[in-house]
């Protein structure tokens, strides 16, 4: 069911993460994304994972929600991981050598790192953005961050307005689709049997009414907005003004520190001969 997917959904709350300025969270996400692509050794992933755990802890979003969010992509993750295990060549003796399969240590390490990287990417961005930031705040944040582009004629405000209206109407349209489906079912329409062509054709009685009504909605909404003196961002003020607070700076520093550590460690050369097994495990690089 559509409603079971938690990825990309907003969970209202009052945690520090919820209270952060959306722009801060956007900036933090960018920093985190850069850092995760640098990560290339056990120590860097450990540091990063600790950071992610910290985010989850302060967000007060339950762990099961996060697991649920990852579930839909688990299959793809597993599939690519397995490919990595088999496809990665390595130096020295393979761990397994059977028929055409050769598995090297490098392959396993690479697969684990890859899976971790994707998982952390999803966890961190959803913790920072979708789970803890309302769509409208996200839109405001984007508009504000991109506002320098207005100077070169990019209609940033219009795009932001379009995005927020789209977000506003998604639930309305979902509800409407449901209603139209029931109405057509009541006229004997069948959406669940037959081949691909038949099923595609069965969608026409749903899509056309949906499109027609969306046009009508758009027209009525436009009139209503005009009646409320809307004229783009000309002389427009805002109820909610985005303001950086102390905690925003604090979080940027904190995340920059973690990211800095990850990046620094990832670019330091690995020296296999010098420091023993623990060093090898932590700092071995792919």
């Amino acid at each position: 069911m559509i409603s079971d997917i938690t990825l990309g959904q907003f969970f209202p709350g009052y945690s520090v993460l919820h209270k952060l300025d959306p722009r801060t969270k956007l900036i933090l996400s960018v920093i985190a994304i850069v850092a995760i692509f640098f990560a290339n050794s056990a120590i860097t992933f450990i540091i990063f994972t600790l950071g992610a755990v910290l985010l989850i802890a302060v967000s007060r979003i339950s762990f099961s929600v996060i697991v649920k969010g990852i579930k839909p992509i688990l299959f793809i993750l597993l599939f690519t991981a397995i490919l990595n295990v088999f496809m990665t060549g390595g130096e020295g003796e393979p761990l397994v050598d059977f028929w055409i399969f050769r598995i090297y240590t490098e392959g396993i390490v690479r697969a684990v790192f890859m899976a971790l990287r994707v998982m952390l990417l999803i966890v961190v961005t959803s913790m920072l953005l979708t789970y803890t930031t309302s769509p409208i705040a996200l839109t405001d944040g984007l508009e504000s961050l991109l506002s320098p582009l207005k100077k070169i004629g990019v209609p940033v405000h219009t795009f932001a307005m379009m995005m927020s209206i789209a977000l506003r109407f998604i639930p309305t349209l979902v509800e409407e689709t449901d209603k139209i489906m029931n109405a057509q079912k009541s006229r004997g329409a069948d959406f669940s049997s037959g081949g691909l062509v038949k099923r595609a054709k069965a969608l026409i009685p749903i899509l056309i009414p949906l499109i027609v009504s969306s046009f009508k909605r758009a027209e009525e909404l436009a009139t209503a907005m005009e009646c409320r003196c809307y004229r783009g961002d000309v002389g427009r003020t805002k109820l909610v003004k985005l303001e950086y607070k102390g905690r925003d700076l604090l979080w940027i520093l904190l995340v920059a520190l973690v990211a800095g550590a990850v990046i620094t460690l990832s670019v330091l050369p690995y020296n296999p001969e010098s420091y023993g097994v623990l060093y090898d495990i932590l700092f071995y690089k792919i």
Partner: protein
Amino acid sequence: MNEILKLQNVTYIYGRGTPFEKVALDNVSVSFERGKITGLIGHTGSGKSTLVNLLNGLYKPTEGRVLLDGADIWENPKEIYKVRYRVGLVMQYPEYQLFDETVRDDIGFAPRNLGLSEREVAERVEEAAAFVGITEEMLNKSPFDLSGGQKRRAAIAGIVAMRPDVLVLDEPAAGLDPKGRREILGGLTEYVKERNSSVILVSHSMEDMAHYCDNVVVMNNSKIYGVGTVEEIFSESEKLSEVGLDSPAVSKIAAELIRRGIPLEGELYTVGGVRDALLRYMRGGAL
């Protein structure tokens, strides 16, 4: 008994096993008769929309059975679509279901789904169109070129064309002016007589209920609050107002006159009925 559709101890629970679980219908038993128009009234959230969706198998009862001519409609869940041809449901604001190129094709959608021959489809379309007052000229138009009232009638024709044994209409006159209301509701009495079918009418308008229905089912709080003839239901306006429903203004006028000692008798829920009662009283008693 002449009953055609029957709910037997039906309970319906939304979102079972989720935090949003809600009992929408609580052990409801009610039956609908052939040759009668039954009104269904109740507040938003009283359970009447759920009940409507259970009648033609859009929802499946959590417990209990829905019987059509004595047979459980969920006997064979794969064939539930057959029930939808026999219990025609006109949903609220049905004009949003219009999609085909011409009104003719749109009304023919259900008959075609029934697998009828083109000749039979054409026959059904003509019949249904004539019934709701859609002219030959309108049949050739795009449904989107019709006026609001015409669209509504075309959409109703799309259900009538299935020749259902039970016709369920959810607020068929919502948003229409008095003329539009009369055009749509006026045809129902004929429909019932001609087909000996059963009509179930959901409406917020007590005046319409009083005018067009034979029986009334009152719902409140996921349960049946009262069942009776129009006269029985509307003569007890206090009971109705207990659940926040009104009776027609004219029946309140009659009730107040009776309270003040003027003995009126007859159909005291329509303007015509009260007029006749007053005339009888004046001729017999006072004059």
